[in-house]
Structures are given as C-alpha cells and as structure tokens.
C-alpha cells in the first residue's frame, strides 16, 4: 500500500495511529475488484485501460472478477439496450455489499447518440451510479480518473453506508431489495 500518508494519522516513534474506518477504507480502496460489463467501443477503451500501457492493476485492480458475487465495482462500458436492462440489474443485485458503479461513456451515462426506441437512456434509470465518465468513448486516462474518484468514495464514505437511511431510500427508489443488515 504505502499510502498511509493519505489518511489523517498521528505518527509516533514506531507506531501510527488512525481510526479503524480510515484504515479499512484505505484497504478497500486499494483492493477493488471490478466487474467489467463492457458491451461496445467503450469496452475497447476499457481493455486498453486494463492493458500494460495504462495498467489498471497499479491500483489494486489486478484481477477482473467476472462473477458478480466477488466484485466490488461494476464498470458499465457501452450501450445498454432496453432488452439488456434487466440483465444488468440482475448482475448488480447479485453483487454483495459494499458495491459501487462506474458508468463509462456517453451511452451508459445517458444513452448517448442512441436516442432511439431500443436503447436505455442511461443506466441510472435502473441502477444507482456512483461516478460518471463522459466521452464517446472516453480515453483510458478518463476512465482511470473515474476509478480514482471511486477510490475517493471508497476511502471516505462510511464503511456502513449500506445501513444508512439515504442508501436504503435510494435502493427503494430503484426497487432493489437489500438485506436488512443489523448495524448495531
């Protein structure tokens, strides 16, 4: 990791003091397992992002998880047709908490140029999105910037986000069931 300086710490001789939340956030942020849900040209840019030139694995993302059960970050890159919508929603529902969503490219964010009867006008109509990456398609640098923003969220938001009223309300709006976790 080597990034402990990022969090507020008290450094002493031979010890370092911080809160558990921050330590966990830091660990989570640097070990995010993404699930690439790539459907078209943005998927190609994402592949470049994963490749050795841009090397997403620098950020603890060495392993793409193609099982939603083991993934933390859903990366939706590309046009999602209305027929594919329920599939995407199912994939999101199968991911276990905590989970984040990165929407890559104009199509995933808003339907893009495909303002037509068969295309979903933005994935935020069926699942909540944490970070949007605009572009048609975005450069790998932009995707990495989106991932950095996801990292900021992971580091700084409450480790128990899923129990908060806002989160429950959000999920209710999307008609997504969440386990009734016991925070106490």
């Amino acid at each position, binding site marked *: 990791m080597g990034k402990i300086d990022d969090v507020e710490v008290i450094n002493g001789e031979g010890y370092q003091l911080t809160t558990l939340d921050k330590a966990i956030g830091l660990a989570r942020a640097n070990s995010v397992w993404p699930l690439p849900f790539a459907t078209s040209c943005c998927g190609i840019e994402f592949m470049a992002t994963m490749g050795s030139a841009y090397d997403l694995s620098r950020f603890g993302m060495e392993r793409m998880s193609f099982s939603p059960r083991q993934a933390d970050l859903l990366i939706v890159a590309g046009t999602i047709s*209305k*027929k594919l*919508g329920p599939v995407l929603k199912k994939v999101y529902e199968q991911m276990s908490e905590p989970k984040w969503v990165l929407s890559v490219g104009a199509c995933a964010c*808003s*339907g893009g140029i495909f*303002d*037509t*009867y*068969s*295309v979903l*006008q933005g994935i935020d109509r069926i699942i909540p999105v944490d970070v949007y990456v605009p572009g048609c398609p975005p450069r790998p640098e932009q995707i990495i910037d989106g991932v950095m923003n996801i990292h900021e969220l992971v580091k700084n938001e409450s480790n128990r986000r899923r129990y908060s009223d806002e989160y429950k309300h959000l999920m209710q709006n999307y008609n997504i069931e969440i386990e009734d976790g016991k925070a106490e």
Partner: protein
Amino acid sequence: MEKLNNEAILNLIQGAFPNDVLFHEEPYGLLTLEVTAAKGHEIIEWLKNHETLSVNYLTNIAAVHYPEDAGREFAVVYQLHSWKNLFRLRIKCYLPKENVSIASLVDIFPGANWMERESYDFFGVEFIGHPDMRRILNEDSMDYFPMRKEYALEDDTREDKDDRYFGRNNQ
C-alpha cells in the same frame, strides 16, 4: 443447358401463374416481381421445386411500410437465390393495413423462421402458419412495432433534451 436469363425465368413463371404476376421490373438487372399476396407461398414453393429453376435458397425476408399507399401499406419482400443456376430474384407481396398477414414460408425454408419473426417484431406482419410468432430482437414488453412510420424513432422518455442545443428551434 443454355443459361437462364431474366426473360426466360419470367416466361416460365408467367406461364405457370398467368394471373398472379402483377408487375415486373429489372432494377440493376435483378428480376423483381410483384405477385398477389395470396399466391406468394405457392409461387415460392413452385420455384423451389421446379426442375430447371431450382430456386433453393431464401436470402432474406424484409418488410416495408408505405403509409401513404392506400390499400397496400405493407410490402413483404423475398429475396431468392438459385445456387444451381446462379441467378437471383426478388418477389414482393403487398398487404393492406387492415390485414397485415401472409402465409409463412417456414414449411418451405426453415430458415425463414427468424426472418419472419424479425419482420413481425418491427412491422407487425403476421405470418400465418409460423410455429413461434413472437418478437425476436426487441424486448417482449414492447407494445408497438417500432419501424412503422407512425411511431417516432426517438426515445420518448428523455427529459434532458432541449431543442435549442440541437438546432431545432423553430421560433
């Protein structure tokens, strides 16, 4: 055997179905016939089983919508190919909007199955005798036929579109 030309093919078809070939033309050399919708199935079957013609391959089925053409709003277009004689031909059947239905070709060409489902999906053409007449590409819950010209191509659920940004301000 002498090579079949469009004229010879047309004569053979017109000889067998004198009253059903309503119109013919040859755009870009491709023999195109308009036949009565009721006889479309029979003619294509005859073409396939004909000893000399042997039109054994159905390249494509498509539908077209002509909303201003009263009484013949829908066309079903069959593109056929004879591998034996190396010629193609196109057969069109026109249908009125009150009864957009025509006999299915699945019993002649099993490959017609998905093509007919596609024409149904986008234009609402009913293929009578089709074993599985339902949508193929669009979501099952769709309640209209999107390629018909009375429906807008654009998605009507977008709220963020301001015509000023698209050069469509007519004020």
